């Protein structure tokens, strides 16, 4: 009797899995959670290094430029050194995310010769005058949000799933609602809208010039627009190198004070 029950359960699970796979194949029945899990688990490089050209543009079209070198290890570790202009040269930033979802961030400002911890309450501050907050540079944890799939839409040439993410009760999130346009071919969120405490649209992040480099879909242009301040930050990634085997030791406060070639 017990054996028959086990076989029945196995058959049931098998049939359910088959139907889920079939649904996934069609794309139509994927839930918002399925899509965002797919986004979270899509293949990403072990490590990446690039030069970033970061332009900060206000509503009058005035532009400030920042040249930055960035090293990443997965989604968890990132270190950035500002190369120009002269008044920010030598400043650097380190982010390390932990498995429990917490993160450590430090900023080094050469004028004060101090490595300064960015504490949680300061993570809503803008990063070096850009439209990215320190929180924007972290990854959102899947389990901190509830998801609802909305009607699919094309954004430019990208055919996209559209998913609404709402922070769960008790989660200290910067935005009360996030809408993600996830390109079906790559599971990259090519556009995201962020809503503030009043439910008003605060920012829009857009990715473009997405190409496969070493087998990984990689965006070469990223724009964050603060629609309330009418200010935007455009980042162009140049000289992208993937999986070059960056030493794990580089992602340490030790390296904030010297720029790695």
């Amino acid at each position, binding site marked *: 009797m017990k054996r028959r029950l086990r076989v029945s359960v196995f058959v049931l699970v098998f049939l359910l899995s088959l139907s889920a796979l079939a649904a996934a194949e069609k794309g139509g029945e994927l839930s918002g959670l399925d899509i965002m899990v797919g986004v979270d688990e899509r293949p990403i490089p072990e490590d990446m290094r690039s030069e970033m050209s970061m332009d900060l543009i206000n509503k009058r079209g005035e532009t400030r430029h920042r040249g930055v070198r960035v090293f990443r290890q997965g989604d968890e570790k990132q270190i950035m050194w500002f190369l120009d202009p002269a008044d920010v040269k030598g400043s650097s930033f380190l982010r390390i995310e932990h498995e429990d979802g917490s993160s*450590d961030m430090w900023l080094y400002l050469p004028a004060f010769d101090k490595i300064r*911890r960015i504490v949680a309450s300061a993570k809503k501050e803008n990063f070096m005058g850009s439209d990215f907050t320190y929180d924007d540079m972290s990854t959102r944890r899947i389990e901190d949000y509830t998801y609802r799939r909305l009607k699919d839409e094309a954004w430019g040439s990208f055919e996209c799933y559209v998913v609404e993410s709402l922070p769960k009760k008790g989660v200290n999130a910067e935005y009360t609602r996030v809408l993600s346009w996830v390109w079906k071919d790559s599971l990259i969120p090519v556009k995201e809208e962020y809503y503030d405490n009043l439910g008003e649209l605060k920012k829009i992040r857009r990715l473009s010039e997405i190409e496969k480099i070493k087998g990984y879909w990689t965006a070469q242009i990223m724009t964050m627009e603060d629609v309330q301040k009418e*200010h935007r930050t455009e980042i162009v990634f140049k000289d992208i190198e993937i999986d070059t085997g960056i030493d794990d030791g580089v992602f340490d406060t030790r390296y904030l004070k010297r720029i790695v070639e």
Partner: protein
Amino acid sequence: MNRPVAFILLMIFWLAAAPGWAIGYRGFLQPMVKSYTSKDGIVPFKFDALRLEITSSYGYDISWLVRNDIYLDNLTEERLTARHEIREAYVDYYTPAGDFRVGEQIISWGMADENNPTDNINPEDFSDPFVEKSERKLGVLALKSDIYLGNWLLEGVWVPYFKASVLPDLSGDYSFMPFPPGTPLPSTTEPPQDPSSSQFGLRAVKRGQGFDWSLSYYSGYEKIFTPVMSGPLVTKLIYNRIRIAGADFASDFFGLDTRGETAYFITEDEDGSDPEIKNPYFQYVLESSYTFENDFKLGLAHAGETTVMIDDQTEAEQEKLIFPRAGMQLCMFSTNAWLLILEKEFPDQYISIRSPVIHDAANDGMLVRPEASWSPQDNLTYYIGLVLFSGSGDSMLGSFSDMDQAYFKIRYSF
């Protein structure tokens, strides 16, 4: 320039001439106009300063830096005053186990923002005590090692020779020395320039998991001399030894950016029996800040000092007259101070406004320093600000109340 620094500079220039060394430079020009609002409207023009920093590296293991500041003061007067200061001139050597730096250098300890009781290694230029600490600090010849052991950083510093701080003239604008102008003072007796005047410091730092903290110990000299009295006369000015044990942290408490430091200063009057030398004392600072969504930052800090080993009220009164000669400069003005910091950014206009307020709760004095800055383009920033003193004559800050300042400066970075 002393011989060891000259040797370091020679070594650096020799390295610069060797093939394979890539040289870079950066710095800034900072002309400044400063006007005293209540002292006869004097408007000295200060070319304050030209900083040139030359750096170079060879491969990834060795680099060097020379940082030189040139000051041109009193351009409106007949005689131009020019001076320069080699702030830093050092060689770095990086190894897998640790980093080593030898030469004239500035060492920063402490996780609090501006007031750091644990930061005592470098001498300071106190001639204008109201400039930022990073500008006051003077380089010191030292060997520094940073050893990395897992999540720990162990810092060791050896300073072979004593280097004195620059103290304000008794008749200077902001003399906080406890002697009236014109007091005949003998020249200072500095410790011998040999290894017997060595100083050293050790610090263990742990960063990560939401909490950074460190423990430190420094054995060195006080920054300000102690007068040796014979009746009413000052017969000698000497620099006393001091040992300082400190601790500091930075973390998030109740949603606030919170930083704190404390240090225990063991003076040469270790048992509190010498009436002319300050008893051992604690200094501490605790600061918290919060940034609102409209780019407005509000910070509050409390800094203070407590002298220990006081036997009776008479000694307590005597100790009040001896100001601390190491640790936070703020404690030279107040042993019980509250700091309020208001900051507002207008990123779209590239304008920033900040106004630190210091209230000396012990003696009822106050310092307010509003400053606005505007960056019309990269590398160029204009500053306009006020330095306003008020309070009772008993307070050091109140005693400067006829020395309010207004200033305008331009910084061009290159």
